[in-house]
């Protein structure tokens, strides 16, 4: 089973129908505006709210994603509190970081990753990197699930053993996962050649 990383990237809306390069460029422009100018976050916020409304992505889903990622930003932002005028800097950073997060979340949920890769290829990002990204995206959860399956099987057989043993058995799961990944890569290479990959 492969579950979708960006469940809303393929619904139909005016935003989804825009070409991927335009969305990537717009996202970059919004990010640059938010980060580099002190007062741009109000218009950026208005634009983002308009995009949310147009894109028909459930607001609750976006809020959940934001809440999930916000602690990471808050942790670093807390350090800013410990200086002179820290509260202002802190508030500014939190607002900016939240807008940036929302921008990237909206980008990934209105644009399929394959389309983004096509844009990268067109702007002359090395083919090796694009191939790596494409294969990584495809096999992310295949491998994550394989690892989880091995971990569960190991945990069933060594139930209730001490922590040091748990570390060793988990490490052997990770090691085995790497060996399996290299073997899978060889099979994938054969399959790619069979389909006429250069």
């Amino acid at each position: 089973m492969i579950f979708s990383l960006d469940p809303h990237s393929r619904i139909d809306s005016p935003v989804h129908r825009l070409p991927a390069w335009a969305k990537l460029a717009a996202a970059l422009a919004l990010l640059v505006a938010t980060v580099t100018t002190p007062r741009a976050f109000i218009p950026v916020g208005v634009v983002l709210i308009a995009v949310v409304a147009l894109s028909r992505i459930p607001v609750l889903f976006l809020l959940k994603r934001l809440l999930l990622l916000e602690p990471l930003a808050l942790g670093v932002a807390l350090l800013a509190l410990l200086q002179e005028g820290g509260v202002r800097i802190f508030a500014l950073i939190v607002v900016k970081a939240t807008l940036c997060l929302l921008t990237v979340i909206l980008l990934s949920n209105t644009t399929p990753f394959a389309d983004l890769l096509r844009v990268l290829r067109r702007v002359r990002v090395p083919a090796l990197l694009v191939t790596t990204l494409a294969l990584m995206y495809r096999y992310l959860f295949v491998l994550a699930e394989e690892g989880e399956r091995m971990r569960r099987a190991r945990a069933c057989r060594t139930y209730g053993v001490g922590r040091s043993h748990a570390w060793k058995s988990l490490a052997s799961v990770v090691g085995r996962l790497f060996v399996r990944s290299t073997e899978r890569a060889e099979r994938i290479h054969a399959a790619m050649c069979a389909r006429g990959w250069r």
Partner: protein
Amino acid sequence: MHIPDGFLDGKTMVTGAVLSGCALGLSVRQLRRRLPRRRVPLMGLAAAFVFAAQMLNFPIAGGTSGHLLGSVLIAVLLGPGAAVLVLTAVLIVQCLVFADGGLLSLGANIFNMGVVGGVGGYAIYRVVQKLAGGLRGVIMGAAFAAWCSAVLAAVLAAGELALSGTAPWTIVFPAMVNVHLLIGLGEAAITVLVVVAIQRTRPDLVDPSAPASGPLSYRQVAAYGLLISLGLALFVSPFACAWPDGLERVAETLGFAHRAAAAPLAAAPLAEYRLSWVRSAPLATSFAGAIGTVLVFLLAFVTARVLIPRTRTEPR
């Protein structure tokens, strides 16, 4: 450790992007020449592997858990050139798909974790591995390099945050580095255990003399070295120079306090004490880092001693 957007200013983001762009260019150039065609899919699968390995949580005391970061592991298994490419791919997907780490801070993040973790970690690994020799050297090198990569990435991230004016160096440096002195221990332990596990099943995959992406030429070593030292010089050294300055100023304040009898008696000692404490926090952290480096090196040595005889005597 992933720096989100909104924390770095323009100059820091551009510097980070230029440095990691150059490193990525070097890596792709090298791979295009040296990487066999049949190994191209391995790059993607290795990136997916790093991601999957990060999802397996290792239990730490008190119900908390940590996970592998993987930069040194991948450098040991695939070589430095491939490590930069693989870690870049991991960071790009984490940023674009999971919004973990900013899109504009991507350059800085790739530099901290991919370039310094991958190439810098690999350099440390190779030096220690050659000094100690054999499989024992592999283990010792991997452990020491894994710890160093975690700490170095934290130092660089602290420097970038301070350079952007997000948080003062005196606070962000101790906070980031002290935490990563500990995280590095976990990273070293997991890296070593995984390397040993792979070595037991497929010793050919952990051969230090033949990494998958081929050996580096001297010119490439020089180029990577230049990039990393440039990064350290730009992001960290402005603050490193401030340390003796900070000490001098504390001495000045204390000397002044000694001479000036008319100064308000009640408030001053406490205020000065706090000031000197805040100023000396980075100094204390650097001392802790230096002592930690020696300790971890010894620990790596002991780990290699303990782990290796057992693998030799154990029946296969």
